[in-house]
């Protein structure tokens, strides 16, 4: 593999510090590069006062998705595991919270309207525990990680990986979405679950709650970003990259790559589950159309655009793609699929390291001059 040194890549965003800055251009650029993340963070914190309610809601959704993108950088960029099924974990988190909110809105002893339409008279047994907020929060965090860990372990412990894993994970996304659609009486079918009024007693339409939820989302993005950077700088991060670059060599050194890969994958699924739950809150809906094969692979393009090795790039890529998607697909819905198809082909063939890679090249070129 011709990947540049991943240690440097993981630090892209802030310019790698070791080399002395000799060129004047680079010297002039360096403080700007250092200030940029803080400026972005400041703007993000102030967004509720800068944006209209509609735009703030969009930004909040995209921020939630960025949490998932961070997890994909972990497994795809640094672990070499391509998952085409992350929509499943996003969906598990989203549906867990959605079920809770559905139950919270119901008067005692009633069942949701879509269940009545399908002729059910009682709640399915697995809906019951979701009436507890504690159980729901736990489920949002644990369920995706658990499913992902088991799935990933079943494939990796037999040393099946690479392309095979990508194909199997895509089959998982297809099966999950089909199952959701077909079990309409308990999942809401194609329409999914929607129309929530409150979360843990807070009305979701109140402006203070909307702003608070945005900040919570932003805080989780920042925490996940910092946490993952720390993780990658640790011994675990080194083992993960080693498993990507030379799995058999790692085995010869006496390590088992499987637990490392499974842990990374489960962590990325946990992030995806949180992203799904937060997205469901902001968007007010979770449905099979958000978790199936196409959305799952769209998640990869967010990260591919930003740069698969760069956490900052993944956040930027997620925001850019989703903003573009929102403006293009509302005006020309047919055009969006062409754009996305072309993006996949162009990014992968022409700039495999994404925007972060392009930015780093620019910096290095400026320094070399």
């Amino acid at each position, binding site marked *: 593999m011709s990947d540049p040194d991943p240690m440097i890549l993981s630090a892209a965003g802030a310019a790698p510090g070791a080399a002395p800055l000799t060129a004047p251009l680079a010297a002039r650029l360096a403080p700007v590069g250092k200030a940029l993340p803080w400026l972005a963070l400041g703007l993000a914190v102030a967004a509720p006062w800068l944006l209209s309610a509609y735009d703030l809601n969009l930004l909040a959704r995209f921020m939630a998705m960025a949490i998932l993108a961070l997890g994909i950088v972990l497994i795809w960029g640094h672990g*070499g595991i*391509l998952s*085409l099924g992350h929509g499943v974990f996003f969906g598990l988190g989203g549906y867990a919270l959605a079920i809770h909110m559905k139950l919270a809105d119901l008067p005692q002893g009633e069942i949701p309207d879509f269940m009545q339409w399908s002729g059910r008279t009682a709640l399915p047994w697995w809906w019951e525990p979701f009436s507890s907020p504690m159980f729901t929060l736990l489920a949002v965090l644990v369920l995706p990680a658990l499913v992902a860990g088991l*799935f990933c372990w*079943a*494939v990796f412990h*037999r*040393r*099946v990986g*690479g*392309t*095979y894993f*990508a*194909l*199997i994970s*895509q*089959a*998982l996304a*297809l*099966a999950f979405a*089909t*199952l959701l*659609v*077909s*079990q309409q009486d308990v999942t809401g079918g194609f329409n999914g679950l929607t129309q929530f009024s409150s979360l843990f007693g807070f009305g979701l339409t109140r402006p203070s709650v909307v702003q608070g939820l945005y900040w919570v989302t932003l805080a989780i993005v920042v925490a996940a970003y910092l946490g993952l950077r720390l993780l990658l700088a640790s011994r675990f991060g080194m083992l993960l990259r080693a498993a990507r670059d030379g799995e*058999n060599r790692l085995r010869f050194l006496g390590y088992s790559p499987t637990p490392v890969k499974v842990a990374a994958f489960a962590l990325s699924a946990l992030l995806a589950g949180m992203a799904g739950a937060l997205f469901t809150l902001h968007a007010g809906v979770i449905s099979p159309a958000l978790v199936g*094969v196409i959305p799952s*692979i769209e998640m*990869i*393009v967010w990260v*591919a655009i930003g740069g698969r090795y760069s956490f900052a790039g993944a956040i930027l890529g997620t925001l850019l793609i989703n903003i573009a998607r929102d403006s293009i697909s509302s005006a020309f819905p*047919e055009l969006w*699929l*062409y754009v*996305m*198809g*072309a*993006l*996949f*082909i162009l990014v*992968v*063939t022409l700039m*495999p390291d994404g925007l972060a890679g392009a930015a780093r090249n620019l910096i290095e070129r400026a320094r070399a001059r």
Partner: protein
Amino acid sequence: MDSVALFLPQLFNGLSVASLYLLAAVGLALSFGLMRVINMAHGEMLMLGGYLAWLTLMVVPGAFGILLALPVAFLGTAAIGALVHMGLIRRLADRPLDTLLATWGLSLILQQAARDLFGAIGVEVRAPDWLAGSISLGDVVIPSARLMIIVMTLLVLGGIALMLNRSRIGLDIRAVNQDRMMASATGINVRKVELTVFCAGAGVAGLAGVLLALLGPVTPNAGQVYIVPAFLVVVMGGLGSLTGTSMAALILGLFSALAQIFFDVSIAQMLMLVLVILFLQIRPQGVVAVRSRALDV
């Protein structure tokens, strides 16, 4: 209801589903054996085959237009396969996961193009009268179109087996499959071999598209229905083995048809995935493994 009367037609159904899985997967499996890449736009070759059949029948209506559609679809999709290989796959050599993504992008573009050109609802290919009826064997009634699918699959399978085992290009293919560098060192033009296999695989998927058109309307996402099971067939079959791929297609096709007696389609699909994952616990190398001493195959 008599269980045998339910079981036998479904068994036959399973055979025809397995045939379609096989036709969709064989090109993927052979290219995967050679190049370790999966063409995610392979499903769109099925779709293109279907549309080519429809176009052929517009030009040549008649009872035997469908027989003409078969070679047209084969050549048409093989030509597009050549373009895909030269324009995309070859450029991304040694980056299998990136190939997956780039060809997925292509698949999206092809689907949307089909939607814009032919409409989202799809087009209907009317099966000729000699294929529209059914044949009854005792109690079991077999639709002729499904019989045709099985017969065509056997013919294609026989053709590929002959090519692999009795022809010069087949010898080259097997050599590259076993050891790419050694094959190249002995003077085999590896790129030509890869291109040939890729085109032939796309062509066979085009044939499958014609046969699919006999069963239902050709829609822009016609390929998507069969391609995910075809991927599972590749995973289960083992690297580049025709026998392994055929057996995996048979297992998954029959399993899915028989599971549908007891469960609805979506649960049958989930069970199929579970079956593949369980199978990998027992035989991670697939149904048939090409033996090799290499560590990183």
